[in-house]
C-alpha cells in the first residue's frame, strides 16, 4: 500500500476545473516530480493533499487511512508537510522562531525543547545566525528556512512548491543535494513542483505531468520528456 494515494481527486472553482480526476501515489523514500505548464493545477493539487482546499470529489489516503475530511492542521500533525510557492516567512518572529512552529504545533513540544530541536535542524541544513529577522536573510537562506520550517513538523510526506525559484545555478545545486540528503536520511516521500527541468532530471525518480488539471503523462523523466503530448503542452500547438 502506498504511503500517500489519491483516487480521482477533482476540484472545481466555479466553472473552472483546476484539478481533474487525479490519481497518484507517493511512497516514503521516493522523490516525485510534478510538472506542467502554468495554470496546470500543480499548486491546487498540493493544496488539496495538504488540506488547504477540500476536493469537489475524490479521496485521499495517507498510510492506509482516509484523510479526505481532515483539516489542514491535523494533516500537518500526521506528517504531510509542504513549502509555499510564494514564501511568507513570519514577521515579528526571527529565523529560529519560524522553524520552531512545526515542532511546537505538529510535534507538541514545549518551547524549550522546540528551540533546541529547531537549532539542531537548522544546523544540519547549514542555516546559521538564527536570531536574525526574516527580512535580513538571503534568498538561499530563506529557502533553507522554508525547508526547515516544513521538516520541523516531522513529515513523512513533503511537498516542495517551486523551492528553487529565484536561486542561481550554484544555489540550486546546493538545494538539490540538500533535498536528496534529507529524503535519504529521513526516509520521507517528496513531491517536487518545479519549472527548472534540470532539477527535475537530477532529483526525481519519477514524474507526473499535469495539464489543465489532468495527468497527461507519468513515468521516469527521460521517458516523459520525449512524450509528444508533454512537449505540445509545454510548447503549445497541435500534438
Amino acid at each position: 500500500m502506498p504511503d500517500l494515494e489519491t483516487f480521482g481527486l477533482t476540484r472545481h472553482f466555479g466553472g473552472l476545473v483546476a484539478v481533474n480526476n487525479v490519481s497518484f501515489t507517493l511512497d516514503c523514500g521516493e522523490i516525485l516530480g510534478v510538472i506542467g505548464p502554468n495554470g496546470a493545477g500543480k499548486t491546487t493539487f498540493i493544496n488539496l493533499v495538504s488540506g488547504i482546499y477540500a476536493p469537489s470529489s475524490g479521496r485521499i489516503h495517507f498510510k492506509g487511512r482516509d484523510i479526505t475530511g481532515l483539516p489542514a492542521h491535523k494533516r500537518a500533525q500526521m506528517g504531510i508537510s509542504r513549502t509555499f510557492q510564494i514564501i511568507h516567512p513570519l514577521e515579528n518572529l526571527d529565523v529560529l522562531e519560524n522553524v520552531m512552529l512545526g515542532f511546537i504545533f505538529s510535534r507538541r513540544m514545549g518551547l524549550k525543547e522546540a528551540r533546541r530541536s529547531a537549532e539542531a535542524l537548522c544546523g544540519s541544513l547549514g542555516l546559521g545566525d538564527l536570531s536574525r529577522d526574516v527580512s535580513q536573510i538571503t534568498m538561499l537562506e530563506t529557502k533553507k528556512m522554508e525547508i526547515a520550517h516544513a521538516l520541523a513538523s516531522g513529515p513523512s510526506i513533503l511537498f516542495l512548491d517551486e523551492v528553487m525559484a529565484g536561486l542561481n545555478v550554484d544555489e540550486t545545486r546546493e538545494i538539490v543535494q540538500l533535498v536528496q540528503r534529507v529524503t535519504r536520511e529521513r526516509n520521507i516521500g517528496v513531491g517536487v513542483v518545479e519549472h527548472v527541468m534540470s532539477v527535475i532530471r537530477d532529483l526525481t525518480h519519477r514524474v507526473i505531468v499535469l495539464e489543465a488539471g489532468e495527468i497527461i503523462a507519468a513515468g521516469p523523466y527521460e521517458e516523459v520528456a520525449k512524450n509528444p503530448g508533454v512537449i505540445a503542452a509545454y510548447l503549445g500547438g497541435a500534438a
Partner: protein
Amino acid sequence: MTFAVRRFLPVAVIAVAVLFPLVSGPYPLAVAQSILIYMALAVSWDMLLRSGQISFGIAGFFGIGAYAAAITTLTVRASPIISILLAGACSAGVAFLLGFVILRLRKVYFAITTLALAEIFRVIVHNWGDFTGGPEGLVLPSLIFKGDSRALFWISLGGVLLACGLSALFQRSRLRFALTAIRNNEVSARSSGIDIFKYLMIVFVTSSFIQGIVGGIQVQLYGYASPDSVFDANYTLLPLAMALLGGIYSTPGPVLGAVLLGVAAEYLKLKIPYGHLVVYGIIIVLVILLLPDGLYGQYRRSVRDRARMARGGTAHA
C-alpha cells in the same frame, strides 16, 4: 536593555503604582483610577489584535460585565468581589458562544460585527424592563469598600495586573507563536499544524473575560450601570487609541499609551474645555502617520537596530 533591567523595571513600576495612593492627593488619584480602567481594556484589546483580529466590541463585553455585576449584586446579593468575577465569567461565556459564529469572520467583517454586537447588547439591555432597569439602569445600594478612593484605585489596579499578567503569560507561551503565525498567514499557520479556531477562541474568550472583569469593577466603583454609560463608545475607542499610541503587539505598549493619553486628555480638558477632543484626535492621527509601530514599537526597533549595528550588520528602515 539588559536582562536585569528588564526583570526589575516591571516590578518597580508595579511598586510605584501600588504605593501611589499613599502619596497622591484626591484629584490625581481619581484621574489615575480612571486611566487604569482604560489601561486594562487597552491591554485586553491588544491581546486579540495579536491574532490579526480588530475588535470594535470592547464596550459590549465591558457593558455585559457591568450589568452582570450589578444584577448579581442586586438579585442574589453577591459580594462585590464575587460579582466582579461573575462579570468576567458572564462576558467570557457570551464570547465563547458568539465565537463559534464570529470567529469565522476576518478583518473588516469581524470588526464591523463586533461593533454591531456591542450595539445589540446595548439595545437588549435598554429594553429588558425590570431585569436590567431599562433606560434608567440599575443603582447599587453601596459602593465597594464604602467608596474609599484608595481602595477604588487598588481594585482598578487589580484589573490592570490581571490583564497584564495574562498578556505577559500569553507572550511567553505557545500562544504567541500561534497568534503571530495566524496574523501573518493563515494558510501557512495551518500547514504548521496550528488549529486556528482553537487559538482564536482562547484569546477571544480571555480578552472578553478581562473586559467583563473591568466592567464589573467599574460598576462596583460607581454603584451605577445604565445602557448609555457602560456601553459608551469611549470604552471602545479610547483603549484602541491608547494601544496604537503606546505600541501594539506588546504588554508595555498599551500601558504606556494609556498613561500618556489619559494624562494628556485630562490636561487638555482643563486647558481647553470642549476643544480637548479635537487635540486628542490630532494626536492620534499624527501617531498613526508618523509612528505606525507606536512609541514602544519604535523603541524596540531602535534597540534591535543598535544591536545589529554593534554586530556589524546594517540597520533597516
